[in-house]
């Protein structure tokens, strides 16, 4: 459960990031050890592979009050389980369009490839996502608790 100050004037987007253990999470780690600064709005959930992300996880994140969701894994061809990220690609693409069709802005759902060496890319990913989601305002479509 996510708890935070949801008042519009002090709106801080809450981003849930599903990161694969081998690349994106290591990338996030590197961003930390390199002391790169990025907005603290992100809650990281570590999974073994981006292919582990069930579309239901993203729906659940929105239900529980996320304003945006990131799924990040290894670059295509570099998944440690061969092609989990390629499967994630199709799931995320179809889900993003379905959400888009019912009126969830596309910027709230993001898929990215971040390698273990890309600490800077990770920091940038968080930064742009937070900025874009901030501009959209709180997720008001279907959270379980009113924002």
């Amino acid at each position, binding site marked *: 459960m996510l708890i935070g100050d949801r008042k519009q004037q002090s709106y801080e987007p809450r981003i849930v990031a599903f990161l694969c253990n081998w690349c994106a999470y290591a990338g996030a780690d590197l961003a930390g050890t390199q002391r790169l600064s990025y907005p603290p709005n992100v809650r990281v959930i570590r999974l073994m592979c981006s292919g582990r992300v069930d579309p239901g996880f993203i729906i*659940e994140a929105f239900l529980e009050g996320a304003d945006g969701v990131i799924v990040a894994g290894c670059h295509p061809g570099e998944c440690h389980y061969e092609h989990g990220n390629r499967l994630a690609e199709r799931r995320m*693409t*179809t889900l993003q369009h*379905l959400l*888009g069709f*019912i009126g*969830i802005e596309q910027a709230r759902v993001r898929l990215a490839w971040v390698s273990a060496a890309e600490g800077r890319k990770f920091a940038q990913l968080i930064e742009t996502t937070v900025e874009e989601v901030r501009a959209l305002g709180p997720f008001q479509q*279907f959270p379980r608790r009113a924002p």
Partner: protein
Amino acid sequence: MSLPQVLDRHLRDLFGSGRVNSVLGAIPTRGPLGMAQLARTPEEVERFTLSPLACPNLLVHLTSKEARLDPTRFPLAVLARGCETRMLNQIFSEHGLRRDQVYVVGLAHCPGAIDPRRLSAQLPVLRGFPEATIEGEEVVIREESGELARLARTELVLERCRHCQNHEPLIDDYRFDLVEEADWIEPVSVDEDPGVEAIDAMIPIERWAYWRSQLERCIRCHACRDACPLCYCENCILERHTPCWVKRSVNLPENTAYQLLRVMHLVGRCTACGECERACPVDLPLGLMMRKMENLVREYYGHRSGLDPSGEHLLSIFDPRDTTATARLEQ
């Protein structure tokens, strides 16, 4: 009203030779809607009809829980129009049923099936057991007292028939022509879907306003899932408690999650048959979502479910071109 003689004969022979244990067809009902019926004996075949009023997709009776609990109905012969053979293919491809469990009586040259809601909108009162015949671009509706109306075919058929690309069965063990000449409606171009386009043209806030007003009315009866021949998981996540993907409460967030999960489980499998929408007691436009997703997977992945009985599930495979489709999202 009953079946043409040659078809009737054939179905009786199937029983006689022990080839099948039951036959699935449709029988007439009062009002503008046929009903699925399982015939266990040759005599019961007599009640079947090929009327375009018998619009239900019968295949749910092959994959439902009742069917699973009743293996004695197999092998089963089914009267299947083109769209239904496409769905059968999909079920075979995902090993929902084995090909040898089903004897397919393919109904060829299908001129379409009548949408009971569209019919009721034009003819609110239908007495007794009405009959309908399709004559060219017209549908003639008759009651016992005689001819009642002649209506335009395109205004009356199901949405799926307007977009139908499969007027001929994709698979069959026996073939029967519904009309002498293949004179079906020119399908609305697959890329054209005014209903879906209208929503695509909205900005997100308008889209949500629309879907919110719809999803708020859902009563969570699960009819959309139960009516779908492709929703046959033994352990449906929509009713599971551990883990609980969607709560039982009937409110906007849960209703939305319910519908999103249902659709995500059908992406790349759904044949946009429209049964979910037809089953919904509060008329949610579920067909819009299903057709949107069908159009999307065709555009992005060149995928059309059910065309290949040995095809793989859209979301379990990938293709080098996918990245282009994903990249388009970022714009």
